[in-house]
């Protein structure tokens, strides 16, 4: 039927903007857009006026000026002559560092606590419940300052290591020093080092990568790749004969033997921390601010993750375990083959949003003086340059970029594991 014509085309009336479903949505959207643009314009003009009054013109030039302050915990080399930009970069790396460390430990801890909470052991499950409630119901900021205070108050100062009969000694065969300034662990050193690769010249983004470490990483990941091959082969053998060959020593071998050989060839040795002057020298040094933040964020987030894990496992009905048991599968196999693959689908989305929260909470680093991006760009740089608008804007963009990346990963995962339904 193409004969019907639209009788309303000819006579457009103004009221149709509101009472005709074809135009109405357009009208509303245009009103919304105008409203939004007006708001935006209003904010912009206010900002422009206010800044003009203050005599500040928005500009990002300060980023290339020398920062003038020092950063104690950093992943790349940096001096107070470097630019604000590089200081911000150090901060960003620190943020990512503590977020990554936190996510890993929070996950491990959270899974353990979550599983313990389901334990048939009364006291263990009760203790885990106490843990979860204690951490979930007290602000994370409080936990951060609390942890910091514990580290400062309970660990020995470096000077306690001094003297004939020191009050404190290094732990683990004199290789690790826990002090109330931070923890020193041995660092890997190479006597026949291959040198460093240098990127980005003298710019603010410059960084060095040790060729030794690259080589070792390549070997290590190559080993992992080989061990995957070995596992595949074991799978094939199992498919063919039903018996699964024991391969763990092969896997370990290909991962570690080449790496170890090259390490020896490069003259690998550990550099131990030593008490020199006011502080320990040498070794890898993790400041207490980092450790406190890392610990507190992990402990706090772990409480949430534990609940997620528990809910995830509980969501897999008892019937699934029983069915697996009735088929003769041992509990650990049941866990690996039946419960975990299903529970993970339930667990991972909220898990990732907790990673996101942890990353955002890492901005509280400022409370313990850990120089993350909020501490550098949003802290000292903002203070010293007085560029509140620019720094806060940059700060938000950085966090937004991190968040969006993480949620993109999450969406991709959710899509890929959707259960197939009728």
């Amino acid at each position, binding site marked *: 039927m193409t004969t019907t014509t639209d009788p309303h085309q000819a006579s457009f009336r103004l009221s149709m903007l509101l009472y005709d479903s074809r135009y109405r949505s357009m009208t509303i959207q245009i009103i919304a857009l105008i409203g939004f643009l007006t708001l935006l314009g209003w904010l912009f003009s206010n900002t422009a006026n206010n800044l003009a009054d203050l005599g500040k013109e928005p500009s990002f030039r300060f980023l290339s000026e020398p920062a003038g302050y020092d950063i104690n915990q950093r992943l790349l080399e940096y001096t107070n002559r470097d630019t604000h930009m590089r200081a911000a970069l150090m901060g960003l790396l620190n943020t990512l560092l503590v977020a990554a460390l936190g996510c890993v430990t929070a996950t491990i801890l959270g899974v353990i606590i979550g599983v313990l909470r389901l334990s048939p052991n009364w006291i263990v499950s009760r203790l885990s419940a106490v843990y979860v409630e204690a951490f979930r119901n007290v602000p994370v900021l409080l936990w951060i300052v609390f942890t910091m205070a514990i580290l400062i108050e309970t660990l020995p100062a470096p000077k306690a290591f001094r003297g004939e009969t020191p009050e404190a000694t290094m732990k683990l065969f004199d290789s690790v020093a826990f002090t109330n300034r931070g923890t020193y662990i041995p660092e890997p050193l190479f006597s026949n080092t291959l040198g460093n690769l240098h990127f980005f010249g003298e710019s603010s983004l410059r960084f060095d990568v040790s060729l030794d470490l690259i080589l070792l990483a390549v070997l290590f990941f190559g080993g992992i790749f080989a061990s995957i091959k070995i596992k595949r082969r074991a799978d094939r053998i199992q498919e063919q004969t039903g018996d699964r060959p024991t391969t763990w020593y092969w896997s370990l071998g290909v991962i570690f033997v080449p790496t170890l050989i090259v390490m020896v060839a490069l003259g690998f040795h550990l550099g131990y921390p030593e008490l020199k002057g006011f502080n320990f020298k040498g070794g890898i040094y993790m400041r207490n601010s980092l450790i406190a933040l890392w610990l507190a964020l992990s402990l706090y987030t772990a409480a949430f993750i534990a609940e997620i894990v528990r809910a995830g496992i509980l969501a897999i009905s008892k019937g699934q375990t029983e*069915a697996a*048991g009735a088929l003769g*599968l041992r509990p650990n*196999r049941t866990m690996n083959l039946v419960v975990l693959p*299903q529970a993970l689908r339930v667990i991972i989305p909220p898990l990732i949003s907790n990673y996101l929260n942890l990353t955002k909470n890492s901005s509280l680093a400022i409370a313990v003086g850990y120089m993350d991006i909020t501490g550098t760009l949003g802290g000292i740089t903002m203070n010293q340059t007085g560029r509140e608008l620019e720094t806060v804007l940059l700060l938000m963009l950085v966090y937004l970029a991190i968040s969006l990346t993480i949620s993109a990963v999450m969406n991709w995962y959710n899509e890929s594991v959707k259960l*197939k339904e009728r």
Partner: protein
Amino acid sequence: MSSITLDHHADRSKMQVSEEVAIEINGMNKWYGAFHVLRDINLTVNQGERIVIAGPSGSGKSTLIRCINRLEEHQEGQIIVDGTELTSDLKNVDKVRSEVGMVFQHFNLFPHLTILENCTLAPIWVRKTPKKEAEERAMHFLEKVKIPEQAHKYPGMLSGGQQQRVAIARSLCMMPRIMLFDEPTSALDPEMIKEVLETMVSLAEEGMTMLCVTHEMGFAKEVANRVIFMDAGQIVEQNEPEEFFNNPQSERTKLFLSQIL
């Protein structure tokens, strides 16, 4: 309760009972906390027997059947399955479980695995069957339950009746000597009940030892060689189906039958 009529009559002549004892239960007692759920159960099942267990809700039918492959632990008495006594020794439990298949009311298929993977999982990981062989066997049993074409779908995509048939095939893939059914049809629509019962009949015709909790009395008459009536955790009456239905002895049995038939 319901009484679905099966399309073809079961061939009783094929169902032979041997002298060999498959399951022996002696003076078994079980408690849930302080609640005495199974009381002094004595039961001997021979190889090839098809036993239907009936009884009012809460009488302990499921619990009894679940004790036989130790999904529940009993506290007193003996359960000997195929010569292996069920104790807290995990090896015995493993042995028994690999010889006893179980089908649940709610199918309990693994939703993250395809039908074929559901069927090959246990043979591969428990029996250490080569994958190829396991798959062939799985296809064989899927054909038997008449759904080979669904092998690569996921359980969520199948109807209830199809899912229950997959569950049966999955158990069969472990080549059990004994099959336990716990109300396999009570979550299904009448149409589907028929499909599943027919599958079970054909299983009985092949001489499988079966213990089946069900209220499908048509099935019991057709297939069972013994009907056990439980009430309040005890075996109150057992008899051949003919006798059981036409001439119940105990008052409780009579009451129960009057209600469900």
